[in-house]
């Protein structure tokens, strides 16, 4: 019951691309480690962390998990649900700020 395999003709990708991505991942991991090593703080630290993180995640998904070569039907099915996660994250940021605010408010001002 497997699919009809036409994989013999289907392109397997050149080994070079994997090695490249592999190397890039090492470099990016090294960079994100350096963010901590040099103790960047504040906005710079967070934006660098996020930048390297998303780049690494993107490379893994696109090339190691072959999403770059997959048809858009699959790619879109996989990526659109992330909007729900994004909304959840966004709202929870607002929520923890409010929680901290009420905690400190009642701590200093009283109930």
């Amino acid at each position: 019951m497997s699919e009809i395999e036409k994989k013999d003709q289907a392109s397997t990708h050149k080994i070079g691309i994997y090695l490249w991505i592999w190397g890039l991942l090492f470099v990016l991991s090294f960079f994100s480690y350096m963010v901590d090593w040099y103790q960047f703080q504040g906005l710079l630290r967070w934006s660098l962390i996020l930048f390297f993180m998303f780049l690494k995640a993107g490379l893994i998904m696109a090339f190691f998990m072959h999403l770059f070569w997959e048809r858009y039907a699959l790619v879109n099915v996989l990526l659109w649900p992330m909007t729900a996660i994004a909304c959840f994250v966004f709202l929870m940021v607002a929520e923890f700020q409010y929680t901290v605010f009420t905690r400190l408010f009642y701590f200093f001002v009283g109930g």
Partner: protein
Amino acid sequence: MSDPKIEGLELKPGFKGMAQDTSSDQTMFKGVHWGKAMMWIFLLSDTFIFSCFLISYMKGRGSTPVEWPNPSEVFALDAFGVPVPLLLIAIMTFVLITSSGTMALAVKYGYEKNRKMCGWLVLATALGGLTFVGMQAFEWSKLIHEGVRPWENPFGAPQFGSFFFMITGFHGTHVSIGVIFLFIYAYKVFAGHYDEQKRGWFTSMKGDYVEIEILGLYWHFVDLVWVFIFAFFYLW
């Protein structure tokens, strides 16, 4: 992988192709093996699990009234008498990425029906995963030794330990399950189950090297999650 050949259908690329695939009969993901589609959807679901963990961690860390411990110091390791921040974590990250690379190559050689190469690479991946789990066990025992518990720790907010053990534990469980399957599949590759299309133990499906890709998806996902945990838990 890419560009499947479908009888009686000329596949278009891009969004046109997406509309075509979606409105066509039989399959929506053209040329995608059932098991591979299943693994993708499962990983999507799993993504939501890890997202919920990380969102909870964000909410917990953001709203705790006590100072959050500095991960850079907590996870520092003495190397030659000098404390190096996040040393072990850095090594773990490199190990995991290495294993991810070997897995990607294993998938490639699997599709080329290069049994030996594929088998050795899957085995290498399994060993990489095992190393990772071992180092995680070391990390856990070190922290426990230092007095970090799920309910308290000497460094600051008690939620630090709770989230640390829960999230890395859940990730470690995924890695461990992956390692077990990697060993099983390494055996199956070496035994030639995919060359002779031997049916699996619990399924009437015929064996095929696509299974290596399916396993690879899972393994890369584990790596992917680690990227996020590394960024949010250790670096943030």
